[in-house]
């Protein structure tokens, strides 16, 4: 069953320079889709379009059967899409527990006590229980990103979208964040991930999409084939640079 489908999605920020040039893409339930590609290829912009954070110029984005262009219920649909940013974007005036439970209480309308109970379970599960009263400024980068992931995960979204979740982290903290993402993928939750962590992508992906200059250049479920026999010279060149 399809969760996301994009048809001929086009977007330009400056007239005459398209960032997305007719992107066609399907994400099926339970898939772990990793989007690779050089910087500026439109990966992150595409993810933002999927969550309605950017408005497309033309084309269609269909989420669980609903055309995102037509809907006035964008805010409600976003509750079904967990979105993790590169820069964490935790609410700086709230502590960890409040960060995780705010949307749950306000938008999902569950009691604060129940939301806190859920949050505490998640925090304990991922070894962050002692941080529940900490403010974001008191956390390491890795902890911030893990909290940002839990903030999305607690709403039990139908898909988790990660936009380069480890790019702002120093190497020592990358592992802890990737560990959490891998655990999420193991729970068969549909995941869409933009990353430059090639080894990680190879390990968790059920589908690889390669983007270049605003277009999908490769879209395959043959993960090993993609890495062992890159479909184009450009991809081979990109992979060799990343591996280096």
């Amino acid at each position, binding site marked *: 069953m399809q969760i996301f489908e994009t048809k001929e999605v086009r977007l330009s920020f400056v007239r005459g320079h398209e960032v997305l040039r007719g992107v066609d893409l399907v994400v099926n339930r339970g898939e772990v889709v990793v989007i690779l590609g050089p910087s500026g290829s439109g990966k992150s912009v595409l993810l933002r379009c999927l969550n309605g954070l950017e408005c497309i110029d033309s084309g269609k984005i269909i989420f669980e059967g609903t055309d995102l262009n037509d809907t006035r219920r964008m*805010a409600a649909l976003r509750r079904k899409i967990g979105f993790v940013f590169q820069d964490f974007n935790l609410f700086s005036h709230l502590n960890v527990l409040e960060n995780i439970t705010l949307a749950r209480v306000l938008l999902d309308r569950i009691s604060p006590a129940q939301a806190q109970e859920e949050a505490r379970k998640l925090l304990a599960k991922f070894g962050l229980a002692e941080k529940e009263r900490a403010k974001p400024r008191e956390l390491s980068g890795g902890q911030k990103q893990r909290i940002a992931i839990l903030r999305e995960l607690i709403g039990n979204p139908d898909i988790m979208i990660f936009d380069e979740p480890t790019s702002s982290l120093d190497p020592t903290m990358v592992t802890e964040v990737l560990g959490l993402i891998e655990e999420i993928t193991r729970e068969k939750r549909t995941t869409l991930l933009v990353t430059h962590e090639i080894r990680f992508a190879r390990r968790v992906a059920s589908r690889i999409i390669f983007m270049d200059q605003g277009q999908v250049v490769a879209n395959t479920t043959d993960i090993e084939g993609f890495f062992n026999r890159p479909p184009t010279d450009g991809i081979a060149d990109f992979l060799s640079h990343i591996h280096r």
Partner: protein
Amino acid sequence: MHKKPYNFLRSILTGVIFLGLLVYSPRFFQIDYNWDFSILPGYFWHEGPGLLLKGLGNTLWISVVAILLGIAIGLALTFGRMSRDKILSALTTGLIEFIRGTPLLVQLYIAYFFIGTVLHLQPITAGIASLALFAACYFAEIFRAGIGGVAAGEILAARALGFKERQIYRYIIFPQALQRVLPAMLGQFTSIVKDSSLLSVIAITELAKAGREAVLDSFKSFEIWFTVALIYLMLNLFFFGVFYLCRFLRQKKSA
């Protein structure tokens, strides 16, 4: 190394000021003037509230009304200036810059003599409206800076979580902006209290005008003006006191 000449000049300047004070201070006590503070209580209470107490009361309520109106209008101006509607934004920006770029005294005269005449406004209405609008334009810029200081990423994250714009303002932007703008707002409160003295020029008997009338009545200008100055100072210290008490209680609560 670079700081030395500056420090030297500063020392010289401080020395000259102190020397001046030392030389001229005896003159303050040598003037031919009979200090008489015994006239003061009568201006606070004499078979009912006296001139200064009435003036103080007027200054207080005028300031409070101007502050409350100023905050409300200031918020509206903030949203007007930040609006995506270019015409609304340009109009609001023009108004804010006009008010901030002209003296309150001139605005008071315009409000009283021109707008007041056209709309048949009472002096007190014209005065409070001027003071409130003047304060509102400064509040608007303070609010705009506070809102602009909230990280764009946090707003984006809230949107991605499914918050509606109203909820983003209520739960993400305002709590953070409020923390940032409070010190600047406190400064604006004290300015409004002091600026309210300008309303005396359009025949409103607030504290400064009451002081002037008390001087004309008693000829004790030094005593009266020192007292008036002290009252303004105490009013502003009261504002500071309330602010720091609130901050202390807030910190205690969050600790």
